[in-house]
């Protein structure tokens, strides 16, 4: 009896989740985006199997070459296979970008909830601090942070978190300001619930829609930012395959091997565009009923 009860509960929960997910398939734009994203995720997971060469192996007989049968997308200035570097580079970018977004969304959500729910001087202090961070041009902020704490994978994540959190906080705060006026929040208050319960259990789940879509877009921005940092030489240390870094080094040989710039640039843009398509399609489909 108990067993059937729990399975039926689980069943309905599963069905509900599926109903939520199936929204994606109603939007063609979202599906196109999703397909490209899934493609890159598969590439990243299967990188050692797909990559025809070692991404770090140098072939001194083939430097800055165009596409050939041996090197499908050509080689770079040190004779390394561009395809293999691209495939392995997807691993770093697809780990760092979601990680940094997760961190900035977590930090931003907490700040936004606190500011929006408590209001008053707490809100004032939090928002003014965030305004101060947002007042800096993004690139400048990246440069300052990375040059202060040094280039490394972890520091790239920290930098992106720092730059991204204020935006998330603003979004969550505005959602909180709206949701906290609802009667169910007042009901929780009249039950004497702890503010943490009200913020994270009553308010946050109802902010999830816009927050998820914003996060998708942010993953795109983060990929962009990681690329930019790589291009400026502030990304991952030298031999690691990194798309931004690849563009940066290929740029010097653009006249001898123009395709060397194209491939990593294409990789970055396809991923960013796909994430944007996915997020946009999702937003349109979820807001249609409201």
């Amino acid at each position, binding site marked *: 009896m108990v067993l059937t009860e729990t399975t039926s*509960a689980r069943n*309905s929960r599963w069905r*509900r989740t599926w109903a939520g997910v199936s929204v994606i398939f109603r939007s063609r734009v979202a599906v196109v985006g999703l397909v490209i994203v899934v493609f890159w995720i598969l590439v990243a997971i299967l990188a050692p199997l797909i990559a025809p060469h070692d991404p770090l192996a140098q072939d001194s007989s083939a430097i800055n070459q165009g596409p050939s049968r041996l090197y499908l997308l050509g080689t770079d200035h040190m004779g390394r296979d561009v395809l293999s570097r691209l495939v392995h580079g997807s691993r770093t970018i697809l780990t760092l970008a979601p990680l940094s977004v997760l961190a900035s969304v977590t930090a931003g959500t907490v700040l936004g909830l606190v500011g929006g729910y408590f209001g008053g001087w707490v809100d004032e202090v939090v928002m003014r601090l965030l305004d101060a961070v947002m007042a800096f041009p993004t690139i400048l902020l990246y440069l300052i942070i990375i040059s202060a704490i040094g280039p490394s994978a972890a520091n790239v994540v920290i930098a992106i978190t720092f730059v991204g959190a204020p935006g998330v906080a603003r979004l969550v705060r505005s959602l909180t300001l709206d949701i906290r006026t*609802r*009667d*169910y929040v*007042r*009901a929780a*208050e*009249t*039950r*004497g*619930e702890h503010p943490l319960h009200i913020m994270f259990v*009553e308010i946050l*789940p*109802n902010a*999830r829609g816009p927050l998820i879509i914003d996060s998708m877009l942010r993953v795109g921005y983060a990929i962009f930012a990681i690329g930019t940092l790589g291009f400026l030489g502030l990304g991952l240390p030298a031999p690691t395959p990194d798309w931004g870094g690849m563009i940066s080094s290929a740029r010097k040989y653009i006249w001898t091997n123009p395709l060397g710039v194209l491939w990593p640039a294409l990789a970055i843009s396809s991923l960013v565009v796909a994430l944007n398509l996915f997020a946009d399609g999702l937003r349109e489909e979820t807001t249609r009923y409201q």
Partner: protein
Amino acid sequence: MQTSRDLPILKVDGLAISYETRYGDVQAVRDVSFEIKRGEAHSIVGESGCGKSTVAFGIVNFLGRNGKIVAGRILFQGRDLVGRSPEELRKLRGDRIAMVYQDPMQALNPSMRLGDQMAEVLVVHRHMHKRAAEDRCLHMLERVYMADPANVMWRYPHQISGGQQQRVVIAMALLNDPALLIMDEPTTALDVTVEAEVLDLIAELQKDFETAIMYITHNLGVVARVSKRVGVMYAGEMVELATVEEVYLRPHHPYTQGLMRCVPRLGMDKTSSLLYPIRGRVPSPKHLPPGCVFEPRCDYARPQCRQQRPALREVTPDHWARCFFAEEVVGQGQQPPAELATHLAALRAPERAEPILKVQHARTYYAAPSRKLLGGHKQFVKAVDDVSLQVQRGETFGIVGESGCGKSTLVKTVIGMEKPTGGEFEFLGLDIAAPVSQRDLALIRNLQMVFQNPDSTLNPSFSVGAQIARPLRRFKVVPRDQIRAEVMRLLDMMKLGEAYYDRLPRQLSGGEKQRVGIARAIAGRPQLVLCDEPVSALDVSVQAAVLNLLLEIQHRTGTTLVFIAHDLGIVRFFCDQIAVMYLGQIVEIGPAEAIYAPPYHPYTEALLSAVPIPDPRVVQKHVRLSGTVPSALNPPDGCRFHTRCPRKLGPICETEPPPWQQDGPGHRIFCHIPLEELRQVEPVVTMR
């Protein structure tokens, strides 16, 4: 031979309208026929979703991209409007049909002066000269009895009151001298006293103009006041059509009969004003029953009703009903079954013991931002100012008043969501002036609240079961392993059934959401539940069911209820003690029967006179308040009501705060006028 005068302005014949949706076409309106003659006001009444607004939109061809007329004719001044191109329609109709909507603030452009907005109608449509247009507008404002029209022309919409705004909108609609004026719930967003003003105006218009009026509303009381004929709609069909007298006194359709039983009436004495709700819920237009649309909820249903769809037929001369057994139904009368009457009467036995809640000289002020950049002393909005009341254990205490009178603030202060500025608050003998976060858990548990808006009372992210379980868990009402069983018991008590446990709020109707809200409030078995207009957003038939449920719960659990409302009819039916509030103060307090009979406070008298009563036999005294409610930022000195009081004595009202005058046990009136004089006042509501 019909002359053109007898020709109806509007004749709707067999109208059917459907909307295209993702799930195929949905028939929102089927087989609706009625006609409106020149100078006649015709009401269409029905609950939300019955298709009454869709009919109106069909007439003005405003159905939106997915709506279309699939059958029937709409004859406007003898010419058919159906199936014509928008261009032809415009020519045919000209500007001879005007429409007035629910919210006047949305119909007026907030950034334009009212005079300019009104004149624009004539300048653009009639190519009138600006000066001539303005003169005409001024004249029209006079005709809708607007006070100081020249001044109003220069104002912006936000500078006049809601009632005046609606007056301007009506004047604007009349500018083009329409043959047909469609009004879609024009008073629903307004307070009772303001509503009364607008309804008076509509009655005047019928005398002054030859315009035919189609009046759409859900409020049966309003219908009785504005129109002679009424059509009752249910689930997209016209189920009954006759004069107001006929429909109200001799309803031939079971649905109409049910509606009449659902509405609390001011005219009746308390014990006979029992509400007898219609069971079940309105069918969704996607899944209509095959036979009569009302069959699943009908007490008289027979096999024939399940198989065949009845037609609208003339049961007595000029009285149409869509029921096979109309003659039988009318014979059954409107009385609820005897066992229900005794059952509900048994529920209403207050055990007057000790006071459970004691509020003395309560004050709640909000600091208003200073107008000046620097300096200037702080101003306060006196939302609640010196309110004292006592609630006895086991009784139902009603607080009535119009919006902004401070009734919600008072309740919020009691429950600890607003910090009181002063006064003493005592609940169960404990001081409760502290905010809710500093209160003892046991205290919190005993003081719970039911909210007004069914759409926001439940958290959309959690299932019904989880939301009812939360207070059980928090207050440790039952051991952990019995929580589920307890939730089921509560659902059962709410007459919802166990299937609701896993449902999400968006799958529930308004009434069901409100029941879950009540279940959540009583889950901790509180001794006092504060209800903030728990039924004002619900349809009448649902309203009655929820109210009866509250009564039943009160009887079973012995809970004390504080019930806020703006509807004097409901309060009378429901409450033992009533406090009438005006501008942050209580003006009259006493047992329910005492409030509804003289002596009245002049404000109570005005409120009672304003309430639309769904009974054509009732005669109400005509008392209307002038002016608008003064700002609570700077309330008038002396008696706060003196600026609008029709019985103002003189300078004493402006300078001296009135004394509390005692009339009988527990009945107190806050007024300068001597009690003897107030006792002379004849009752507001009398039967003809």
